[in-house]
């Protein structure tokens, strides 16, 4: 196990490094001079040169890369072209909105998907099993922002129950207000995410229900519920955990888009604005943070999987079957 941990951590570090390289190159390869973002139209060559010097794009690429890495390691994510404020603290401030949004949405999605997926599998032949399946089919086809728009229309504009957007100025000082603002966005994302989770849970449950080991347990006198609890649960969880990492990352993405729908001051809004204004430090900073987050989540998911499924651990002890039958 420790061997695996070391190897996987090394792999993670290498991945993070490679991701940094790729990000760096991608941004440098974009046509258009970042310096232009700092200047107005018709700037003189001296002004352009001065701007380039200011951002540091007049240095050779490897030098830029090394200094960029240095900045990253000090958690210095640069300064926004537009606001001239440091990017790092701004991102941190916005995470206060985006992280709870993502986590709550994910949690809600899981809470919805597990029982629904189970019922959809258990009652697979019946009409309501098929209905649930059809609903999940619909859920993965629907654009998340459209769901947001519809929910706003019904719950904010028609019923006036919840705010149509925005977030309290003082962030979480008043948790009730903050949560109220997040309710519709969380539900929006959760509805769409749960659709795909339901399909995974259903598939995993169907596998368990049709499995030989469940049949053996029942044939030896175990009740159905007892057998499902002792054997079915863990076996069903394994394939679902393997995709939880990806689903969490996708939830984060959904949050980015949904923040636009609900005018939430989160990472998504910052990113969209950054793109619109060609604010490279902002774009770069957010992409670095989100890519690293996704890689870390993947690492954690991998670890959990290995802990649960003994078949994935290539035990150094090997097989015990040396003595044949």
């Amino acid at each position, binding site marked *: 196990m420790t061997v695996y941990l070391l190897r996987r951590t090394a792999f993670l570090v290498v991945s993070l490094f490679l991701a940094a390289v790729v990000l760096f190159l991608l941004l440098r390869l974009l046509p258009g001079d970042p310096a232009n973002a700092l200047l107005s139209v018709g700037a003189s060559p001296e002004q352009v040169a001065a701007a380039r010097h200011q951002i540091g794009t007049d240095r050779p690429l490897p030098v830029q890369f090394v200094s960029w890495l240095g900045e990253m390691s000090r958690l210095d994510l640069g300064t926004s072209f537009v606001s001239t404020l440091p990017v790092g603290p701004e991102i941190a401030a916005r995470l206060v909105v985006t992280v709870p949004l993502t986590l709550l949405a994910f949690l809600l999605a899981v809470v919805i998907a597990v029982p629904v997926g189970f019922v959809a599998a258990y009652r697979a032949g019946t009409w309501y099993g098929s209905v649930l399946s059809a609903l999940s089919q619909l859920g993965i086809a629907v654009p998340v*922002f*459209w769901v947001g728009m519809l929910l706003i*229309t019904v719950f904010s504009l028609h019923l006036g129950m919840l705010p149509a957007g925005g977030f309290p100025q003082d962030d979480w000082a008043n948790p009730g207000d903050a949560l109220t603002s997040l309710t519709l966005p969380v539900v929006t994302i959760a509805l769409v995410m749960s659709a795909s989770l339901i399909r995974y849970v259903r598939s995993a449950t*169907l596998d368990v229900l049709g499995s030989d080991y469940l049949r053996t347990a029942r044939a030896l006198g175990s009740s159905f519920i007892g057998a499902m609890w002792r054997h079915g649960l863990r076996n069903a969880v394994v394939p679902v955990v393997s995709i939880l990492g990806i689903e969490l990352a996708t939830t984060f993405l959904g949050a980015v888009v949904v923040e636009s729908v609900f005018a939430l001051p989160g990472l998504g809004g910052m990113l969209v604005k950054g793109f619109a204004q060609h604010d490279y430090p902002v774009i770069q900073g957010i*992409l670095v943070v*989100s890519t690293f987050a996704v890689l870390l989540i993947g690492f954690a998911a991998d670890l959990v999987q290995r802990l649960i499924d003994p078949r994935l651990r290539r035990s150094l002890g090997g097989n015990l079957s040396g003595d044949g039958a």
Partner: protein
Amino acid sequence: MTTRRRVPRSATLIAGCVLAGLVLAVAVLSFFWLPYAPDDTSGDRLMPPGLPHLLGTDKLGRDLLTQLMIGARVALEAGAGSVLIGGLLGLAGGLAAGFATRWLDDTISALLDILIAFPTVLLAMLVTAAREASLGSAVIAIGLAMSAIVARLTRVLVKRVLGQDFITASRTSGTSWPRIILEHVLPNIWPTLSVNLALQFGLAVLAEASLSYLGLGAPPPNASWGRMLQEAQASVFIAPAGVIAPGVLLVVLVVGVNLIADGVRDVADPTRRRTR
């Protein structure tokens, strides 16, 4: 003696074809006939459905039905273009990785994992910001992001096929690698791969809609359903058609394509447990 395998009918496949076909028909029709010119803003703004504008107008006075029809074109182009780029790139990359030696394979896998960690929409935003926002940029971006996922799947499938005995048998009887790829590898990975590509089509359509919604997709007068939704959002009370219609069409198209994918999977391998 010839054996004709009776192709089992799949309700899923038929339903999918009907739904997707509907959108396709609208798109094709749009090349021949449109109620109004795409950039005709002569109508009254935000009119409800009726005459002369069958579905009403948008906030600039454009005929909604016209915009929707053009949007069908855009959606299908986005899906097809992305799948073409993503599929070809992914197939090439995946084949390379599948045949590669351990060291090269590990490197490619690591790169793929990183590319996949790059959330699709973010990657797409990057590309569209680099070039001017346009449908082409969106398609390239989505295609690139998709290629990593396709490559990863292809790699797994290729490795599985290569590990089988009949490949070894082929090699020992002297078949060259290119022939093996053509005659054995590709036909064996195609069923699973094609289903996956069909699902990616739907995802690409949704991704393009998201990009357009955020303002990073095809600019007007090139209508994208996503952009239409963004424009209609503010006036949802006055003209709900603008919010409902594009969304419904998106769902119809994506559900249709997904059902086709599921239907093809059922037909290709009827021994699969019916997981409908």
